[in-house]
């Protein structure tokens, strides 16, 4: 985009189509990654608005701005969008798609057409979900967990919405398949397994979880649809079924799914710290292996969502034990990150500031995960706002903050422009503050006994909810600053060089934005990542 000698970027090079078609029919991983990012953020905004409306409803006891039915539909749609349309595809299919081939020195993903297909599945699923909101019995009101028997009995449009989620599941599986195969097959010459950037390692672990867990969601949702349409009775005790089996099946997917969300986020954090500390990462192998072990042990703990469900006592004990085991590799990562700052030469730019916020919020959320992983305390706080606080700390404070960090870090690579640093820092601080004002009171509310998914509450919970609602406004302000800054910079930002941060991984060796096939010449790798001094 700058000098005439510069190669054409992937924005400019033609692919036989023009206009919008050159995007939605493109098999270029960079274009698909941007398609994902763009569509994700559109849906994300819908869900944010729903979240803000929910908070508004909860600002005071008694009905405020909506009916119970609409509130129930809102947290369901909020949850479904945030989980299935935003945070699960978020990093792997958005940033991962864009960065993975660049980081391993490949020209594209292993299956470019499947890559495009998965975006189409994603869009179709999203459209089906949107259609389900306005047709039939109206938006689903089951919560994102779709627990039977309520989800079988309710007259709302659950069947269609669930079908939409099923399609999203296919999309996610295909993404995972592509990630894993790409990493196996398309690494540049010399890029041995233990020379890969750690973001790639985390995508590898994520890909496997997507492949091996998502089909279980598929069959679970299929069963739910069949149950509604044909009445098999698998979950209906009157016919010999067992409602707890649905919970098992659902969490067999949905617990590993939280690692689909967090692993790539951890990967981003691991990329950013060494670059801004200008030193190598501490404990490369430990971080790589902890990704793999989080992914695999993550399969063994789904029962911790069912400690009060009536599951057998033995399995409650076993699942609690296993839950504590997964906490250890997460801890290893946190300690490695901190150690990687030791004796660095740190520049606290906005990507690093988001990363540091991540580490704090993730640790707080994760440590509360230990409280709810212990049996006796889980029985107390399960189904209360304590859980709501835990998972917002993990998904938003964790994944989304890392996502922010990643967006800021790779922004110059993706768009070839630089954003303004001051507003970026401001937005991070405002987001961080708003976040804690919004979600920390929820821990207290939970301990006082406030159940989740309550449209209305007793007056004694008022203070906490009020503070929380105010926090949601602060957060929204932070979000607005950040997006304004980023979007503005796409158009009128200063031109960024190919390597503004002095990064040492392969994506920084090509121009910004990268050319159509990423590299003029496939690089040859001779050493591990994060070498800043030669």
């Amino acid at each position, binding site marked *: 985009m700058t000098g005439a000698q510069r190669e054409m970027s992937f924005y400019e090079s033609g692919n036989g189509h023009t206009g919008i078609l050159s995007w939605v029919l493109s098999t270029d991983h960079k274009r698909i990654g941007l398609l994902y990012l763009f569509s994700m953020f559109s849906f994300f905004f819908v869900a944010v608005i729903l979240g803000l409306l929910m908070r508004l409803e909860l600002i005071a006891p008694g009905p405020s701005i909506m009916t*119970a039915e609409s509130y*129930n539909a809102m947290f369901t749609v909020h949850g479904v969008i945030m989980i299935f349309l935003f945070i699960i595809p978020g990093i792997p299919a958005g940033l991962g798609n864009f960065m993975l081939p660049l980081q391993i020195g490949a020209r594209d993903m292993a299956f470019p057409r499947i890559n495009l297909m998965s975006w189409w599945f994603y869009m179709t699923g999203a459209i089906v979900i949107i259609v389900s909101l306005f047709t039939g*019995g109206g938006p689903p009101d089951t919560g994102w967990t779709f627990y039977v028997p309520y989800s079988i009995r309710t007259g709302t449009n659950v069947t269609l919405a669930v079908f939409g989620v099923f399609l999203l599941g296919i999309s996610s599986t295909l993404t995972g398949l592509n990630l894993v195969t790409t990493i196996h097959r398309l690494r540049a010459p010399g890029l041995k397994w233990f020379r890969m950037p750690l973001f790639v390692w985390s995508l590898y672990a994520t890909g496997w979880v997507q492949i091996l867990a998502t089909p279980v969601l598929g069959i679970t949702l299929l069963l739910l649809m069949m149950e509604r349409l044909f009445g098999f009775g698998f979950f209906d005790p009157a016919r010999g079924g067992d*409602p707890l089996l649905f919970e098992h099946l659902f969490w067999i997917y949905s617990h590993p799914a939280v690692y689909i969300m967090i692993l790539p986020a951890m990967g981003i954090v691991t990329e950013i710290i060494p670059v801004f500390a200008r030193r190598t990462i501490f404990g490369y192998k430990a971080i790589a292996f902890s990704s793999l072990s989080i992914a695999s042990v993550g399969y063994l703990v789904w029962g911790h969502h069912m400690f009060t469900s009536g599951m057998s006592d033995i399995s409650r004990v076993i699942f609690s034990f296993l839950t504590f085991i997964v906490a250890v590799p997460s*801890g290893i990562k946190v300690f490695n990150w901190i150690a990687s700052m030791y004796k660095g030469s*740190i520049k606290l730019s906005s990507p690093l500031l988001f990363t540091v916020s991540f580490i704090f919020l993730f640790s707080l959320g994760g440590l509360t995960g230990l409280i709810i992983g212990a049996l006796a305390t889980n029985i*107390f706080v399960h189904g209360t706002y304590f859980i709501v606080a835990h998972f917002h700390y993990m998904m938003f404070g964790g994944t989304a903050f890392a996502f922010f960090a990643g967006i800021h870090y790779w922004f110059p690579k993706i768009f070839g422009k630089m954003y303004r640093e001051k507003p970026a820092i401001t937005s991070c601080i405002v987001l961080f503050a708003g976040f804690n004002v919004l979600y920390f009171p929820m821990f207290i509310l939970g301990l006082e006994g406030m159940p989740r998914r309550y449209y209305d509450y007793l007056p004694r919970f008022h203070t906490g909810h009020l503070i929380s609602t105010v926090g949601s406004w602060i957060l929204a302000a932070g979000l607005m600053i950040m997006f304004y800054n980023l979007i503005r910079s796409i158009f009128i930002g200063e031109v960024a060089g190919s390597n503004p941060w002095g990064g040492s991984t392969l994506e920084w060796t090509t121009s910004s934005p990268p050319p159509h096939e990423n590299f003029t010449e496939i690089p040859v790798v001779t050493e591990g990542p994060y070498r800043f001094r030669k």
Partner: protein
Amino acid sequence: MNQAFSNQTGNVDNIFLFITVISVVMLAIVTSLMIIFLIKFSRRKNPVATDIEGNLPLEIAWIVIPTILVLAMFYYGWVGFKEMRTPPEDAMPVKVSARMWSWAFTYENGRRSGELLVPLNKPVKLIITSEDVLHSLFIPAFRIKEDAVPGMETYLWFLPDRTGSYDLFCSEYCGTGHSSMISKVVVMPQEDFYAWYKKEEKGGAKGKSGLEILTENGCLECHTIDGSKNIGPGLKGIFGKRVTVVTRGQERGITIDEGYLKRSLVEPGADVVKGYSDIMPSQKEVLPEKEINTIVDYIKDLK
């Protein structure tokens, strides 16, 4: 959180405290180290970084120490849990039946109540089930909770050691009325409790009036008696009216008669009034025959 309302309260709170203290310490260590490093090794103060690839003893330490800590947490959580799951032999059994969106507590002598009344200092065992969808019985002051699952019995127990009245919530999402599925636990001195326990139910031998039954059984959570619509159809003046119902997927028109009303109570899923969901809990084996008849008569007269 420091007042003991039942034996479980202290039990759970101690474990909570144990894990929280460790967690806060951990968080403090992590955060302060991070901030110290950010300041001390900022580019201004430390322009040249030192590469450190790893340090085996350190890495082993931060694998082993957290492992020990989490195992301790698991252990205490388990011990506390065992206590929560072992009711004493002499606990007073109370059957709990959850349905959209009310609770019914049935005592050994058949006494029924919509609130949970219990005697002070006597262990109580709740045997919980649901008539329709999942619910969860949650008493925050006692730190206990267990789901009500259709077709299954689950249990809880506690030993109340202070009189008073405490909130009882439904904490598993169960539909529109989930947030109003609230009741109370009333812990009373033993004499008071037994006086209530032995008393004849309201209405005595004559039985309750139709409206009383509707109120006590949560019918009015979904139905009105003034003709307006709610979750379910209004009950005023429906007798003799023609309605469209969905029977096994087929629509058909019927006239509401006694047989239909009874069926609506006992087998609500058989004919679902068009425009409504099939969510009404069946009253089969919940209400005695006599009371069902009373209701039907009451609805007939509700003009």
